[in-house]
Structures are given as C-alpha cells and as structure tokens.
C-alpha cells in the first residue's frame, strides 16, 4: 500500500470459491475492497455466486484460495465472532428465533461479543417509525410477521449493533415498491448518519434500485467481478 493511503476496511485478495462439493469454480482471482463509507451494489445473474461471495466476505464459509484482510490483517480464528459483529451478513430470507419481535431484537446482546452493550428500545423506535411500523408489532411473534416487516426487523437487529459493514443479500426481493423504498431509506439513512465509517454492499437485480442506493456498482458474472455502471448515485 502506498504511504498516505488509508487502510482499506475489508479487502478480498485473489479470492476463489468452488461450488460446495464440486470441482467447478464459481469465481477465481477475485479482488474487492470495501472502504469505509462505501455504498456499493453487487449485480449479476442468478447462480453467479453473489451469495457465496457475501458469505465468504463475512467468513461464514471458507474459500478455496485467496485471502480476506480486515483493516490490513487476516482475521485470527478466535477473532472471527468479533469480525462478524463488525461485518454483518443479512440473509435473503430473514431468520428469527421463537419469540416476540422484541425478544428477537434483544437476542444479539446475549452473545459474548456484544457483552457490555445493552438493548435500547428507544434507539430503535425512530427507525421503526420511519418505516411505518405499527407499535403493537413489538409484542407479536417474529415468525408471524409479513415479508416486509421481517426484513425491517432483521435489518434493525443488525443496525442496532453498529456494524462497520452491512452485507445485504437482496433484502427487498419479493417486496412491494413501498416497502422496498422504506427499506432503502432505512439503510441509506443508517449509512448517512456516519458516512465516513459505515459501508454496505447490497446485492440487487434492479438497475433502478442500484441507482437509488449505490455510488458504485459491481457485476459478478462468469466467475469475474467487473465494474458496473450506476446511473445516478443519489
């Protein structure tokens, strides 16, 4: 790295992943850097390996070659949970434990990595209000929420942990336009609150959406990652 440059936050070097149980490569020699403050979109056809790449970036799977650097260093085994608390991957289909919305939102604070921090409902309320949330839903079973509500809760569960990077795997797939916009606004607002520190990489199939949410677009296809045009970043 050249002197004077800031250390990139998350850097994939020569990353290569095979399909589980197959010889065939999903991608190889992949280079990707997510700088602090980045608003990035990841495009590409189904089956190109976008989800696998996001899993690899969150160290949820091990790749077959290459390495991942976090603030210039490889993540030690014992440091993986702390890394994942800083680089949070959000599943395409939100997953909840049995219990109410509030119980699910409290759950991460029971993890050792978040010890010393406390669940703060007041902090979440403005975010909920912003997304048109009905207050009675706090007490509802999280597993009985509608698709859009589930996405909002899953997003807020991650956002309240103040990660440095959110890896969003098609969070608005199968949602109506209004809910889609609400979720976009939530993420954009979250990033804008600390624009030099918070970053996201958002997997999307919609060029319109990419134009609304991202400054930079990347396309994963045929095993390679290339720059993709973003019509209008704002």
């Amino acid at each position: 790295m050249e002197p004077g440059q800031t250390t990139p936050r998350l850097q994939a070097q020569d990353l290569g992943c095979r399909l589980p149980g197959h010889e065939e490569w999903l991608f190889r020699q992949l280079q990707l850097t997510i700088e602090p403050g980045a608003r990035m979109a990841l495009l590409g056809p189904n089956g190109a390996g976008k989800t696998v790449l996001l899993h690899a970036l969150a160290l949820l799977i091990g790749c077959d070659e290459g390495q991942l650097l976090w603030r210039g260093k490889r993540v030690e085994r014992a440091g993986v949970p702390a890394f994942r608390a800083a680089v949070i991957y959000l599943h395409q289909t939100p997953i909840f434990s049995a219990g109410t919305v509030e119980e699910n939102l409290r759950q991460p604070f029971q993890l050792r990595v978040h010890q010393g921090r406390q669940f703060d409902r007041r902090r979440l309320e403005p975010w909920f209000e912003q997304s048109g949330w009905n207050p009675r839903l706090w007490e509802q079973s999280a597993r009985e929420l509608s698709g859009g509500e589930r996405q909002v809760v899953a997003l807020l569960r991650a956002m309240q942990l103040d990660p440095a990077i959110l890896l969003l795997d098609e969070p608005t797939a199968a949602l109506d336009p209004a809910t889609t916009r609400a979720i976009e606004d939530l993420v954009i607002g979250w990033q804008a609150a600390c624009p030099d520190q918070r970053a996201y990489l958002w997997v999307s199939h919609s060029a319109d959406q990419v134009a609304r949410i991202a400054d930079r677009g990347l396309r994963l296809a045929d095993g390679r990652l290339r720059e993709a045009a973003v019509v209008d970043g704002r």
Partner: protein
Amino acid sequence: MGDSYLELTYGQLALAALLVVINGIISVVLRLDLAGRLLVAAVRMTVQLLLVGYVLHWIFAIDRWQAVLALGLLMTWVAGIIAVGRTEYRRRGIWISSLISIWASSWLVAALALLVIVQVQPWYRPQYAIPLLGMILGNTLNGVSLGLDRFGRELEANRAQVEMLLALGATSWEAARQPVREAVRTGMIPTLNAMLIAGIVSLPGMMTGQLLAGVEPIQAVRYQLVIMFLIAASTALGTLGVVLLSFRWAFTTDHRLAR
C-alpha cells in the same frame, strides 16, 4: 447356588421352544406372512445366546483379566457401531465420536462400580464385571444413539438459525447451544422414565434374574438400584460426550458450519 435355583436341561429348553408354535399358528391363520421370519428369529436368538453362553462359560473358567478386558472391548466396539446404525444422521467423525463416548462413559462408570461401589475382588471377576459392563453399555448405547440422532436433526432443521446467530457474531458454541441442549435432553429422558416406572410396571430385568437365582429380594433391589444409578450416570456422560464430539466435528475452529 445349586440349592437356590432349579437347573434347566436342554429337554426343558426344547419344551419352551415349542411355544413358538403358538406364534406360528397365529401367523398362518391370520396370514401375517411372519412364519419365515419367526423361524429365523427363534433360531438366531438361540444360536446367539448359546454362543454367548459358551463364551462366558469359557471366560468364567479361565478367570483372567485379559479375557475380561478383551470381551469388554468387543462389547464396547459393537455398542459403538450399533449406536451409529440406529440413526440416519451421517457426518464426518460420527463413528469415532460414538465409540469414544460409549467407551469412556461406560468404562469409567463400570470401573467406579467394580472398584469403589461393589468393591469386587479381584476387580475383573467375570461374574460381576461382564454383566455390569453389559447393562451399562446397553443403556448408554440408547442414550448415545438418541443424542446423535437428535443433534443431527436439530442442526439440520435449524441450520439457518445457527447461521443467523453466527452472522451476528455468535461463537459456534453460542450458535449451537440449543441443538446441543435438545440432544442431551433427548438422550437422557429414557433413563429418567425407566427410573420413574421401575418396579411399578414391571420388575427390572436384572432384579428378576437375581430373584430367580435365589437372591434375597432386598439384596436384589439394592443391586437393581445400584445398576440404575450407574446406567443413569453413564447414559448422561455418554450422551453429553457424543453430542459435544459431534458439535466439535460440525463446526470449524473459526466458528463456521463445516461444509
């Protein structure tokens, strides 16, 4: 002993074996199509038990610790294999996990029984060592296979949930705590149930055997209680062991689900 119980001849055994005809008649009359299997089962049981009888007869006669140990190892090996055979769950390390946990828990508890509780002299006396180990193994095997099966199913059914917790910064232990807990609980429940109904629904097998052999009922009950406590401890240890070992194999050291 000769005074306290009636010895059986092969003639008497043959007489009892004739009773299998009752099962055969029921099968033929109701067209259950079980006659063939019935015959195989009856012959197999007879051959198996007679073989075991002769092996035990030989081991009792030579009275050497090496022979007791060798038979114990063979029984443990078979128990480990059967425990895995009873579950459809297959994962890396399942055989070694089953063998190690059954071996460690059963032998520890059997050693405690022989050396500390019953205080058998010498410790390997086949009359005590083999049946005690056999009963402990048989029950530990149940717990281990139930624990293995439940852990596999829980992990499979809750894979997304486990991955969600990992993604939020959970350690593999934090993410798998629920499947581990459920699996250990499942493995321990049959022993608890057996303890609750012991003596009410039926007399436990060992106690019945001792009564037939002429042992004084209160003594037979004491032995039965001791063996139930041994079984409970070994089942708990074996189940916990196999679930923890399976957990160890299911995750990598950097807190990922093994592919």
